[in-house]
């Protein structure tokens, strides 16, 4: 195997996540999509860790940090979402529209 397929996989996953984050109407799915983008970055990191010019474990550690941070982000995101849901009784991203113009 070589590096490119993994990077390509990461790119595609990043794209899927980005697309989801921008089009899905359910806020939770939006959050999930963002997680997929982070996963894509992790694939990159781990792949580089494995294949890079000087293979080292730093990429894996970095990925681990990212996983932790992503989990925290998800937690906060869901909390804010719940708060929002409680007030507006909606989890539709298009209802996040009080403030504009």
């Amino acid at each position, binding site marked *: 195997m070589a590096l490119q397929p993994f990077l390509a996989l990461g790119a595609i996953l990043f794209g899927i996540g*980005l697309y989801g*984050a*921008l*089009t899905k109407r359910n806020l939770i799915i*939006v959050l999930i999509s963002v997680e997929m983008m982070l996963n894509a970055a992790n694939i990159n990191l781990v792949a580089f860790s494995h294949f890079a010019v000087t293979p080292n474990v730093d990429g894996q550690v970095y990925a681990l940090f990212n996983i932790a941070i992503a989990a925290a982000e998800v937690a906060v995101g869901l909390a804010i979402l719940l708060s929002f849901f409680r007030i507006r009784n909606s989890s539709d*991203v*298009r209802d*996040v*529209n*009080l*403030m*504009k*113009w």
Partner: protein
Amino acid sequence: MIGLTWLVPVLPLAAYIILLASGRRMGEAVAAGISVTAVFVSFLLSIGIVGDVAAHGPAAPTVYPWLQFGSGSAGTITVGYQVTSLNALMLLVVSLVSMLVFLFSRSYMRGDDRFSRFYQYLNLFVFSMLGLVVSPNLLQFYIFWELVGVCSYLLVGFWYFKPEAAAAAKKAFIVTRIGDVGLFIGIILLYLSRGTFDFNTLFGAASAPSGMMIHAAAPLAYAGAKFFSLWYIPFAGWHAGAFVTLVALLVFIGAIGKSAQFPLHVWLPDAMEGPTPVSALIHAATMVAAGVYLVARMFPLFEASATASETVAVIGGFTAILAASIGLTQRDIKRVIAYSTVSQLGYMMLAMGVGAYVSGMFHLVTHAFFKALLFLAAGSVIHALDTQDLFEMGGLRKYLPVTHATFLAGALALSGIPPFAGFWSKDDILTAAFTSGHYVLYAMGLIAAFFTAAYIFRVYFLTFSGVYKGDRHPHEGGPAMTIPLIALGVLATIGGFINTPFAPILGNFLQDQGPIGFNPPANWALMAVSALVGLGGIWLAYTLYRTEEGRAERFAQRAGGLYTLSFNKFYVDELYSLIIVLPVMKIAGIFQFLDRWIIDGIVRLAGEIGYTGGVGVKYSSTGQVQTYGLVTVFGLAVMVLIVIGIGGVI
């Protein structure tokens, strides 16, 4: 006495300041007393000065530095006074006529709300006029030149509540202003070429007035001529003659404006809206003659340019006949005399143009006497009748005997009937025109003389002969009015003898430093012709207005279009308003429109575009976070394409 010349203008100024300071509180008698006294002393001083000049010749100018803007004499503007024979003569004439008019006004303006204000303005005017006369340099001359214009403006508009008076004042100022700008440019050009404003230096030493220094001045000393640009007209490369002509014509434009010559004559008849003493003093005897005086003062300049001289003569001759022909048909007594003034000033210009320096000045003097007389007499009539319409008068001979007698003297003088003053001077001019070979101009002058006699006797017959048509009880206005009339009447009668061909006293006086211009020889035949022409004019007036009722009307009908043209002053005013005033107003309107809607419109549009951009930015913030993300993605896409472009991938 010459050392006291400064006092001559300063006395009226002092009177002005006293009157100004005391405001309305001052009584009529006091105000008039102070003013008359001041001018009277000025008059006495002037007599002394004339005596001095006659005895010892002119004095060197006395000057003081006034404004410094550069180094050396060229960088310093001075003020002061100077007495030459010409100045002295003018001083005398001005102070004399002023004094008499001041006296006359005492009665004429009696009871006016702003009596003291009237004298105030008059004093200011006399100060300015005298200051103009004694100016040793062009700049100071111009300053007083403008000041007399302002006084004229103030006095014409004295009865400001009459819309006609207000309009006339404005018109007088603006029309003369046009001329003044010409003079202004002329002065600057003269200064730039000669580096001085002083009359003496401009034309070389005072003792050699005819040696034209201007000729020698080429190439012109243009200080800043080294900067060449698209807009720069290199005068330095001009033939000096062309430059001289240009300057002379510019100066003459000033004279045209002030002396109401064609085509700027339109203001003077309107200026009759002012009180009659004003018309007598300013618009007959003194200020309007300043244009002639200017040409006389700058005579060497005009002598140096044949073109300019010809122009002066032609304009003068044309104005003389044009104004006279208008005078034939006017109904307003003052307007007739005003057109007469325009016409007579034309004669003076004609004289100057053909080079008859002395004749022109001579006519200026006699004209001052008889025209002031005519105006004052007309004033007396108006004062008695309270109307200016000739056709509401008549038969005043028995009500106003003094006025009648003096008016008759003035009319005869104006008509050029020997031995009245006007005969000698006018004949002098006609002779000069003829002898110098300007036959056409001579003919024009002759015809104008015929008209002159006709219109003034038309006035005379309509006013004083026949029966009074009104219902008032006219009477003389008291000694303050009659004394000036009598004094002027005497002058109008005998004033011509100061320069008869047999005894050219004035000529000698004016040419005490050497001959100036062209002195026409006595010509008996021409004298007879002009006298006859004058008589013919009187006969015509008599025939039309004294022999048969309605003859004049029939004659007018027969004349048809000509009569209408003359009655409507050849439509010059209408023409001007059509081709100048209206377009200027229209252009101003268009510019204002441009300003408001195009230039400011563009400004506001720019503002609107910015603001609209802001509104665009505002509404780009849709509140939809996914839209923001979408924009971000496109930003990302563009950014990625750019960077990988830079990186050399695509």
